[in-house]
């Protein structure tokens, strides 16, 4: 294995992984891929013997000392999300412990990992993460987590337009609370629900890779631009640049959470203030404009391989913002 080798783990055909693998090829970085769909014939063992921490992967063709990798990018998914997960007893057991060993190793591996699961834990509670974000200097939307319908009605009267969404890491569509929903508000008595004051303005998705910042501006009238078409709206994405102090805040926020790669959701209000909604520890950066996404993938490869590489000294990308 060459110095500066990076490891990519997950479903190799998933676009964020494809872009990193392609970027590594362009940059001449040695990149090894653990494809969750191709684990048959491969093996892994990790542990502590005689006080020594080791991790070894058999690819089928060769054996690699995983602790010698410079960095790792992981988007490993649960077996339940694999279309073609093994179903025979031996295959199930093999797959289960392969992923178990890989994930447990990544948490303590002596290399740069984008990202360790522990670093992304705050994303499992958006209101807890909002507390981090505010400490990082960003404004966050006024929020209420409640199972009291009257409290939600009062919150709505105070803020006008209000949205609701999941408080946990479970993905949900951000939805505006309408008069039609008001009639169903009694249902929240079963489970406290997160409501937020709607923030008007322009959306920005910011990808932080170490100290580098890439920004995509999203123009959309939809409540949740990710699902704009469901609202009959469009979402136009283009590379943009952030003011240096905002870029710095994003870098510091990601670093404070222990994230090597982060997707920061911002909105610039009409008064110019940037409001931060969320820091995503496993961002699907490839869903944004192609130019920014390729720049993110290259930056990630360089970051995981240990730093800037020959041939990568070029002008900052159009979507790259310089932190203060």
């Amino acid at each position, binding site marked *: 294995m060459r110095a500066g080798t990076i490891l990519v783990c997950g479903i190799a055909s998933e676009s964020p992984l494809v872009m990193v693998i392609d970027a590594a090829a362009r940059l001449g970085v040695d990149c090894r891929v653990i494809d969750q769909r191709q684990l048959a014939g491969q093996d892994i063992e990790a542990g502590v013997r005689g006080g020594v921490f080791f991790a070894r992967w058999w690819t089928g063709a060769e054996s690699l000392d995983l602790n010698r990798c410079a960095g790792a990018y992981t988007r490993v998914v649960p077996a339940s999300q694999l279309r073609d997960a093994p179903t025979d007893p031996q295959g199930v057991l093999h797959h289960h412990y392969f992923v178990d060993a890989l994930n447990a190793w990544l948490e303590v591996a002596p290399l740069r990992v984008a990202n360790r699961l522990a670093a992304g834990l705050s994303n499992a509670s958006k209101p807890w993460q909002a507390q981090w974000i505010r400490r990082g200097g960003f404004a966050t939307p006024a929020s209420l987590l409640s199972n009291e319908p009257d409290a939600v009605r009062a919150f709505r009267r105070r803020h006008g337009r209000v949205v609701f969404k999941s408080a946990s890491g479970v993905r949900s569509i951000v939805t505006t609370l309408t008069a039609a929903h008001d009639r169903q508000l009694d249902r929240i008595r*079963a489970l406290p629900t997160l409501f937020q004051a709607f923030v008007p303005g322009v959306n920005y998705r910011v990808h932080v890779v170490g100290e580098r910042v890439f920004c995509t501006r999203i123009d959309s009238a939809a409540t949740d631009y990710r699902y704009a078409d469901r609202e009959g709206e469009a979402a136009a994405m283009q590379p943009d640049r952030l003011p240096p102090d905002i870029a710095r805040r994003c870098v510091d926020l990601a670093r404070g959470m222990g994230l090597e790669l982060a997707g920061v959701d911002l909105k610039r209000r009409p008064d110019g203030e940037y409001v931060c909604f969320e820091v995503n520890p496993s961002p699907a950066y490839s869903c944004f404009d192609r130019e920014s996404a390729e720049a993110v993938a290259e930056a990630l490869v360089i970051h995981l391989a240990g730093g800037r590489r020959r041939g990568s000294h070029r002008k900052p990308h159009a979507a790259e913002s310089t932190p203060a």
Partner: protein
Amino acid sequence: MGERGVLILAEADDPSALAVGRALNARACPSQRVGAAELALASWHHSPDGGTTRVVLPSGRCLDEGTIGVVLNRLDGVLPPQFARAATDDRDYAVAEFAALLSSWLHGLEVPLVNPPETGHAWAPSQHPLGWHVLAVAHGLETDDFIVASSLRGGAGTGLSRIGGSAFPRGCDLAGWYRAPRGDGDALRVWVFGEGCVGTEDAGLAARCTAFVLALGLRCAGLDFVSGSGGWRLVHVDACPSLEAAVLAVPCAGWLAGLVEGERG
């Protein structure tokens, strides 16, 4: 506003919570216990953006944030009873959503949290043996050998025993967790309470234990050791140890009361 004390999150039949509560009361340190179902059925008004939180328990008792100086958490998650018979996806969603609320509320209290609520992160070093073995070694604690493997082709599992078994056909259960046989050496249990330890007079071992537990993201844990030729070897980590015995409940209560005093100060 009442005097600050210890909020114990534990079930009503948790003898450790009862023992620590009694020991706190004996020190005139206020304590209150709340269980998972009470939290799930409470009325919640949580404003995470710097506002206050109002929690009214089903009994009508209000959990006043101003009375909470320390949280001792012994719950391993909250399943809202109203979702107990729901479809799996709905139940999982309810558990995740309630865990998100609990995390935000507890961290927002900005008081010492012993220990943080379960995150469902099975590979956290406090949960997975590979993680705690690596951290133990990094903190100068000897451990038994441990490996997790998808097969034994590499030979690292030689001489080790598979932990647990499997229902799969004989010959298939090669993948798994393996550890060294325990042997019949002397046993030692050390309880870590913040920067203090109960169970060992060895100051060096105590210091390594407290640093190790802190690195796991915990403030309280029970650590099991067995003796070997090289000294004590760590073989088990318990993030929610029994504290029922007075020799544990009393020092734990003393430590918690000290944390409350620190918060008052």
